[in-house]
């Protein structure tokens, strides 16, 4: 039973790990994250890496959609910008230190974010959704251009470099895991901090009532563009990690489908909440795996009969978005909250 929170000063009251289950939960999660690569199979590590990268991107999207209340269906494009910037940097200077590449990719993606965020100064809601939709098509179009093909590989895609830290090349899944996860944890922490201080509060204010925020001295245009920049930067960082993680990338990996997948992860997890992106991403990325297992057990591994797996996955994703919107619009986090509310009162209430 978790009863009251007893605090003696205001800064303790402002803390985020404010009670023992939160504190120990965090420690357990970090320990679990550290032990995982030593016990998991290569395949599980592949999945974990993918999930870690996606979490970074979805956290970024959460900044924009969840906290600032601006819709975007174009963040897959910024993901692509990050990935292709990383590839291009290594094409020009093969020995660039990975963290520097990561930072540059992030900055470039942020710049694109600002550019495509400009319509947010004039419109909101679905107008913005369609405007950001444009980002997918325009950026992929650029990537596929002949004159950029030297750096991007054009329409047929390109091989990607491995990260090299002080002469050690990260080749195995395990090694890559140790690159991705610290980045993910730090970026999560950064976002979490953002939203308990002045900057993040201003974004939430814009989401809740924009004219009211303005009257309190929050410059809407600057904060909206910053929000776009931050969210695109997170996606860019994810893209950069993605390029290091996979041996090759294709333009069509990113596009509209990825943009929507990111939004689905966010909706399934819960918008405007810290844990939302984590829960949502894990759920959404594991569903196709489950589907593969089911498919394999039904068809007995017959490859030709598995042509239905991909369309079925699409249908399932679509139904999950709609299902969450109808039945659990606050996402998995809300279920999690209900569980803890129940626990904290147990056995006195249900």
């Amino acid at each position, binding site marked *: 039973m978790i009863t009251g929170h007893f605090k003696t000063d205001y800064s303790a009251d402002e803390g985020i790990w404010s009670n023992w289950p939160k504190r120990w939960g965090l420690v357990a999660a970090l320990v679990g994250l550290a032990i995982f690569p030593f016990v998991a199979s290569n395949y599980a590590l592949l999945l974990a890496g993918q999930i870690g990268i996606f979490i970074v991107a979805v956290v970024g999207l959460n900044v924009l959609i969840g906290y600032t209340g601006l*819709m975007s*269906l174009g963040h897959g494009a910024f993901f692509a910008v990050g990935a292709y910037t990383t590839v291009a940097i290594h094409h020009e200077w093969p020995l660039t230190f990975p963290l520097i590449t990561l930072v540059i990719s992030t900055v470039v993606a942020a710049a694109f974010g600002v550019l*495509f965020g*400009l*319509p947010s100064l*004039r*419109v909101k*809601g*679905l*107008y913005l*959704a*369609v*405007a950001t*939709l*444009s980002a997918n*098509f*325009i950026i992929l*179009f650029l990537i*596929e251009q002949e004159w950029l093909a030297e750096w991007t590989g054009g329409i047929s895609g390109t091989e990607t470099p491995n990260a090299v830290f002080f002469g050690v090349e990260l080749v195995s899944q395990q090694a890559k895991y140790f690159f991705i996860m610290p980045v993910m944890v730090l970026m999560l922490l950064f976002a979490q901090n953002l939203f308990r201080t002045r900057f993040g509060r201003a974004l939430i204010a814009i989401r809740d009532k924009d*004219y009211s925020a303005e009257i309190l001295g929050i410059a809407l245009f600057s904060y909206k563009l910053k929000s776009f920049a931050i969210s695109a930067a997170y996606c860019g960082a994810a893209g950069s990690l993605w390029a290091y993680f996979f041996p090759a990338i294709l333009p069509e990996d990113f596009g*509209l489908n990825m943009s*929507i997948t990111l*939004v*689905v992860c966010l*909706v399934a997890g819960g918008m405007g909440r810290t844990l939302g992106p984590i829960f949502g991403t894990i759920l959404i990325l594991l569903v196709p795996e489950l589907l593969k297992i089911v498919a394999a057990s039904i068809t007995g591994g017959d490859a030709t009969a598995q042509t*239905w797996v*991909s*369309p*079925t*996955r*699409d*249908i*399932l*994703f*679509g*139904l*999950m*978005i*709609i299902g969450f*919107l*109808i039945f659990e*619009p606050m996402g998995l986090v809300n279920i999690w909250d209900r569980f803890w509310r129940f626990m904290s009162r147990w056995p006195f209430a249900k």
Partner: protein
Amino acid sequence: MGQFIQYIINGVISGSILALIALGIVAVFKATKVVNFAHGHLILFGAYFYFTFSVVLADAPFMPAWVSSWEPAWLIAYAGDAPMFSPRAAIASWVSDLPRILLGLVGALAANAVLALIIERLIMRPLLGQSAFAMILSTVGLIWVLEGSAGLIWTAEAEQVPALGPNFPIRFQLFDQNLFLFSGSLVNLLVALLLFASLMLVLRYTRSGVAIRATAEDQSTAYAMGINVPRVFSTAWLVASTTGAVAGAILASRNGLSPAIGLFGLSVLAVVLMGGLDSFAGVLIASMLVGILSSMAQWKLGGGVAEIVPYVAVLVVILIRPHGFMGQEEIERI
């Protein structure tokens, strides 16, 4: 100059098809305040239904022979030995295809209508009163459901379907320039514009049109005035799905049947926004503009650029006129 006019004509023809697609998006938005991101995929289904009824079903063994190819004696006599591509040969072949075309259209309209009613009832109705965000996202989810279902039901290969009208090249002169277009395109243009115009008239002058507009203005007041709001919603979805089925049939006969139709439909969303979500006239202007711009881009810059024209154009328009050419700005009272 000759080529310029030629591309303008091509642009107007594709613009009219854009307008036909846009019609469905605007109709649903006007009545329900939902912007249907899945309208392109509704059209994709329309195209597949058209294919199913006009090709698969018409050629099925249990169908009477005249459905797959109607060749009464007078038609054979009329066709005679007209040379290939001559108007007479084209018309004869169109008449002989007529049963399957009609079967296809009726089937596609009916099937798409049923599909839209199911969507409206199962997905959109429970979300009534939710945020615009939830509405948008549910139609985004619908994209995947429809795309996946189409992938399961129909093998995703380019298939040919019969055109709506007889197809022969027409050569003519305008301002002393030699120009040409296909009669099939002309039929498509006429069909699209006729549907567009008749819907505008219905909305403006009939009782149910007024009901739809009233609902668009204020749902609860419309309810209080005795308007059957749920029925207005289903009507709007019916309009969207049936016009969408026609658009699907046109697109499939123009460029072949493929899942790309869905994405093409998505790009029409950009066109709708340019025109102004709630303005038929604005949307018509935007459709023509984008049609012509795309056609010009195709001519000067290649097909790849033509595909992103609507997306670039919408960004420019939004920055200058946030609510499109003729869209109504929502005024927030403070």
